[in-house]
């Protein structure tokens, strides 16, 4: 009888973990929540202290994501290893063996060099096979960086919040936890939990600190998003119960990588049928499309933006909308490639319509923030367009011009990042002026370039980034997506390209009405003069503009991060669809 016991050498493990991202992933997610917890014990009158503390928390989170970036290996296409040891480095485990004669044999057991753990996985609700599973790869890292980065800036912009500071800051930090969790979760259930965690703080942030119609906007936001969540939940359950095979003794799972493997036909004997894939894809797509948002699910966005306080608008536009795109890339496509291929044309069409529709609607707005909100609809249309340009040879199932689709995917990701920077900047710029004159009527501005030249210069830069001017971030995403679209559909590509004219139209017209002209036409002119553009505001705008320029001039900085992951994703989707087509052919021939 030999009883084997494992004795972990904790010091060594700790060293390995602190060197590796094992803990880092969880710390990144929960640090803001911890910060929120600590904020609760602050005196509610110590406003400046609390703001400083919350800013520090967001800043540390940002630094941690940078640390994670340090661990990131861009040439590894899969999920990144979080725990990696080689035999030479560490003796992690010792092996005690109780011999038959009662003596104890000690032997060093060494985790071999192959011990690479991709992602953190801990049991959470074992009865349902739900795990606390986190991982990161080239798709989530850029968005993670964006999230923590925009959070810091939005926190810097939060000085304009002037009531219930403590609650605001707590909710803000909770919101950040939810957002970071969404980008790191690899378990579908966990993903859903974080998705909902982010929803509630947002509801209160809009509903309490918002503008005059805040309740309406908050409820509208909530209804739309909840509807999307419900559809997503149905899809989750479809996948969960579809992933089990009792005959083979395979348990149902929420693991996204396993589900993706099943969806792509890489698992023997378990597949999602074509109908399942199509239905699930449609459910997931609507769920995510509401978040993106695309035509015709977009009407919550203008209201939410108009009523939300400035920093929340920044978060909303800069990060939240990205979750929709991320969900489509990370979940909807990998889990149901057949459904995705089936709906690709619709996707691209919706993308193109969103671009044009959003731009036209923006052209008709008189509310500054509403205009920027519609521009978001237009810009996020490019994301959908880029994701969907999957042209398939119907007989073999292989992608035609896969590199163009890869380009579209990359372009879509980049567009998300670029839009995160530029739209956050635009909302911030609107907020700066709103804080002073307390109105947003485009027809009552003018002449700001003369009154606040520094501010106007920065604003023009950021608006040009939104316009898609080369050398600034918006250009790269838009133009790459559009260039990739021709391979898929000529008509839709032309429609999408038409967006460049309209975008120029509404942005330049806005610039003219707000910043140019001889004099300011609206109320509260004295406040404009007495309350100059301060250093805190300037730093937010300057940082955003610098990033817009860096991303625009050297986009490889982001493409380099996501290239391999995207390439392997596209490759596996392509193979997955071909698998499905092959098996369908086999069935057909057998039937004959």
């Amino acid at each position, binding site marked *: 009888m030999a009883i084997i016991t494992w004795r972990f050498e904790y010091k060594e493990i700790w060293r390995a973990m602190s060197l590796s991202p094992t803990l880092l992933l969880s710390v990144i997610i929960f640090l803001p929540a911890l910060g929120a917890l600590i904020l609760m014990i602050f005196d509610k009158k110590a406003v400046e202290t609390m703001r400083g503390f919350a800013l520090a928390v967001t800043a540390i989170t940002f630094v941690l994501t940078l640390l994670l970036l340090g661990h990131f290996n861009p040439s590894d296409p899969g999920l990144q290893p979080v725990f990696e040891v080689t035999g030479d480095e560490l003796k992690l485990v010792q092996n005690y063996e109780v011999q038959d004669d009662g003596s104890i044999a000690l032997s060093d057991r060494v985790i071999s060099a192959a011990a690479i753990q991709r992602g953190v996985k801990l049991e959470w609700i074992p009865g349902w096979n739900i795990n606390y599973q986190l991982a990161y790869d080239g798709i989530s890292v850029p968005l993670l960086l964006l999230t923590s980065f925009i959070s810091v800036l939005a926190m810097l912009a939060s000085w304009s919040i002037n009531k219930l500071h403590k609650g605001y800051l707590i909710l803000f930090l909770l919101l950040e936890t939810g957002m970071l969790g969404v980008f790191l979760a690899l378990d579908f259930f966990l993903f859903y939990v974080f998705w909902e965690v982010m929803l509630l703080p947002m509801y209160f942030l809009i509903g309490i600190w918002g503008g005059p119609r805040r309740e309406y906007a908050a409820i*509208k936001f909530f*209804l739309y998003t909840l509807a999307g969540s419900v559809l997503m939940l149905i899809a989750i359950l479809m996948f969960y119960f579809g992933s089990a095979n009792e005959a083979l003794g395979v348990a149902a799972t929420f693991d996204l990588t396993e589900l993706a493997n099943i969806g792509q036909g890489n698992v023997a004997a378990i597949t999602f049928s074509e109908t399942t894939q199509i239905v699930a894809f449609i459910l997931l797509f609507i769920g995510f499309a509401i978040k993106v948002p695309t035509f*015709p699910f*977009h*009407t919550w966005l*203008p209201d939410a933006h108009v009523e939300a306080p400035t920093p929340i608008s920044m978060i909303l536009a800069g990060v939240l909308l990205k979750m929709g795109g991320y969900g489509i890339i990370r979940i909807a496509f990998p889990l149901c490639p057949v459904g995705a291929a089936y709906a690709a044309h619709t996707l691209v069409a919706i993308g193109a319509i969103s671009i044009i*529709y959003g731009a*036209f*609607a*923006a*052209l*008709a*707005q008189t509310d500054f923030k509403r205009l920027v909100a519609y521009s978001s609809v237009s810009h996020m249309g490019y994301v959908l367009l880029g994701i969907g340009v999957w042209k398939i040879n119907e007989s073999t199932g292989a992608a035609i*011009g*896969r*590199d*163009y689709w*890869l*380009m579209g995917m*990359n372009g879509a990701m980049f567009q998300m990042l670029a839009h995160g920077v530029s739209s956050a900047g635009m909302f911030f710029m609107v907020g700066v002026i709103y804080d002073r004159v307390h109105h947003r009527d485009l027809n009552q501005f003018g*002449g700001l*370039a*003369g009154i606040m030249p*520094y501010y106007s*210069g920065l604003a023009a830069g950021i608006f*040009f980034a939104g316009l898609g*001017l*080369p*050398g600034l971030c918006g*250009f*790269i995403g838009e*133009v*790459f997506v*559009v*260039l990739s*679209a*021709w*391979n898929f559909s000529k008509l839709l*590509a*032309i429609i999408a*390209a*038409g967006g*460049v*004219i*309209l975008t*120029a*139209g509404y942005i*330049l*017209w806005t610039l*003219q009405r707000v910043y*140019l*002209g*001889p*004099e300011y036409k609206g109320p509260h002119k004295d406040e404009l003069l007495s309350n100059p553009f301060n250093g805190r505001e300037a730093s937010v705008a300057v940082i955003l503009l610098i990033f817009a320029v860096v991303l625009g001039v*050297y*986009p*490889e900085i982001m*493409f380099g991060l996501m*290239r391999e992951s995207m*390439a392997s994703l596209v490759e596996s989707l392509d193979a997955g669809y071909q698998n499905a087509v092959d098996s369908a052919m086999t069935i057909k021939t057998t039937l004959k």
Partner: protein
Amino acid sequence: MEDLGKQLSTLLMVAWLLPFFGFCIEVFGGYFKWRLTKTAAYIAVGCIGVGFLCSVVAFMQWGNATDWVVFESHEGEHHVSADHDEAAKSHDEHGAKHDEHAKEHEHGEEHADEHGEKAEGAHDSHGGHAKPAVQTAFSGQIYHLARFGELDISIDYYIDSLTLGMFMMVTLIATCIHVFAIGYMSDELTESYEDHFVHTSDGGHFKRPGRFYRFFSYMSLFCFSMLGLVLAGNIFQVFVFWELVGICSFLLIGFYVERKSASTAANKAFIVNRVGDFGFIIGLMILWTSCGTFRFDNYEDHHGHEQPGLFQMVRGNDGHVTQDGDAVVLKDVHGEPLTDASGSTKTIPYMLLVAAGLGVFCGCVGKSAQFPLQTWLPDAMEGPTPVSALVHSATMVAAGVYLAGRFFPMFLPEVLLTIAYVGCVTLFVAATIAVVATDIKRVLAYSTISQLGYMMLGIGVGGWGAGLFHLITHAFFKSLMFLCSGSVIHGCHHEQEMPKMGGLWKKMPVTAFTMLVGVIAIAGLAIPGTSIAFSGYHSKDAIVATALQFVDDNPVHILLFIVPLVTAGITAFYMFRLWFYTFAGQPRDAHVYEGCHESPSVMCGPLLVLAPFAAWCAIGGEHGKLFSILALSEPASTEVVHASHDIHTAAGSFALVAAILGTLTAYLLYGKTIVDPANIKRQFSGLHTFLVEKWRFDELYDVMFVRPSHVVGKWCAGVDKYIFDEFLHGVVRTGIRVSQWDRKFDEGIIDGLVNLVGNVTFSIGRSLHVFQTGNIRQYVMFIAVGVLMLFALLFAFSFAILA
């Protein structure tokens, strides 16, 4: 040669990037420090001046390394890039297939015999005779933008004699204009600049701090963008800088942000350009999807293999487009058909390639203000005059022509014909409007459009060299004229209407005579019988000659010769009209005349520098050095047309006659006033109004595009508000109503039931309270009795069951 490529690219990149650093320094330093000093201007001039020097050094190096082949070969033939040498090997197999090709081949040998004549058509390097292995074009990569699988987008450079020529032209003109602007913009050097064109609500003039530094920072940014455009080694990069020059143009047109007209004109310029860019993007999409690269020249991919650039793909080694049914066969670096991974030949449908060419040309139409997108350029005159001189005559608007020239190998005959006709319509329309314009800058603006039309026409009919030749010469004399007009405007205190001027030559002789140089140049006057003439004559003559050659080959397109010929006369007419109106005759407005003065030397200096260039830069015509340098870059394309000597002579004579006629008419009408122009105006008042209203394009576009897009915008917003939102509200209202029913149901039935149960229980409890005696002994008794009764029940029950 590799070293040369490196040196050239380094030098040109220095010239290219210096203005950008200048921009950064000026924009920040200007805002924080040099608001009221000329420091920003000096930095800008320094940057662009050094850029000019770099360009010249680069040119000299290029010339040295190529043993000044340009000037020797002008005796014999043109050399193209060494890549084409290899073509000779594979030529024979290919050549035999195509009749045209064979003909060309003979041509080549003919010209080889005609050594010492001139260099027409002898572009092919496979003419059978040895040629020096001199590389004249250099390309390479600066850095990667992105790579997707095998697709690759980067920032490249492509340097040939055209690039060098453009660099020198742009930097030289820009330097002059920068210097000129120091004087012209000097009234901005104040804390309280009074803008006479803007009225505040209290009736006074608008006052603002001066923005001297800002002007120069914009100018630097523009120079950076323009040079980047010229240096670009791929069409995508061209597009990038295309947009950047567009935004610089926007910023400069809208420099007087307070003026509604200025900001509107800026918007118009940018948006109209974007309409062109829309086509440009479509062209890019087609090329990108079909060819998989944007590079002009061959390049090394990331595996280290040499891959064909766009030109090589379409034109191969010999300038021929190989067709396979309805498709164009793409070629690899050796001129063989290009195959993809699966081994099948890569082709592009012929019509798609035509569409790509048209798309890219759309961009050129927007940028070069060609018909039908010409409307923005006259409005762009809202910007300060140096801007008009630099951006809206010499460089940016010429970028369209430059691109059409650079992209020439990609244009199929159908595209070229379109280009020719667009140019033809433009040059006529613009010239007719220029005849009736009275604003001095607008006349020049229309003349610019018209001249750009000439260039397009030249390129369209296959006169690649002629078009770009005119581009360079036009840049010099038009910038000169704009600066002169700027000098006039400055001297007349921002008076731009010609009817208020007259006789100014006495007050500002330098301006008047440099202007005269420009006018003669643009009018294309020459001493009959000789080729002693200013630059405009040579270049316009080249275009008209090529057009005549083209018409000679294709008589259907006779208009392509007639219209430019007539317009040559009109051009001479309106340009001299401008000069006579402004400088000759009697002063028409005493007030303006009294206040007028000659500009300071900082402004006259550039005029005097530019004037010789305007006059003699094209000296020698098509045998001259400038043309030879340009012609060295002539692309390998079978579409290139060279006028024969006879046709050249004929066309030259026609053009000269037309120009002289136009000049005489102008002199008689405005110099001598034998007929009062007002009478003619009255006679043709309908036509006059039509022309003054610019053929009513603005109104047409307003009705056709601007208003409909606003209406559609309102519809979209309305759909959101009244359909989507109302739908949502309806859903929510229904939900609320349902929940109200639900509430009633709950309150009435569910709650009722529960209450009933509760009430019954309560009343039972009430009635049972008598048993709650509080007496412990009774409780025990109850228990005992209860147990007994239970037992009895059980007993009875079991009995009942047993029974």
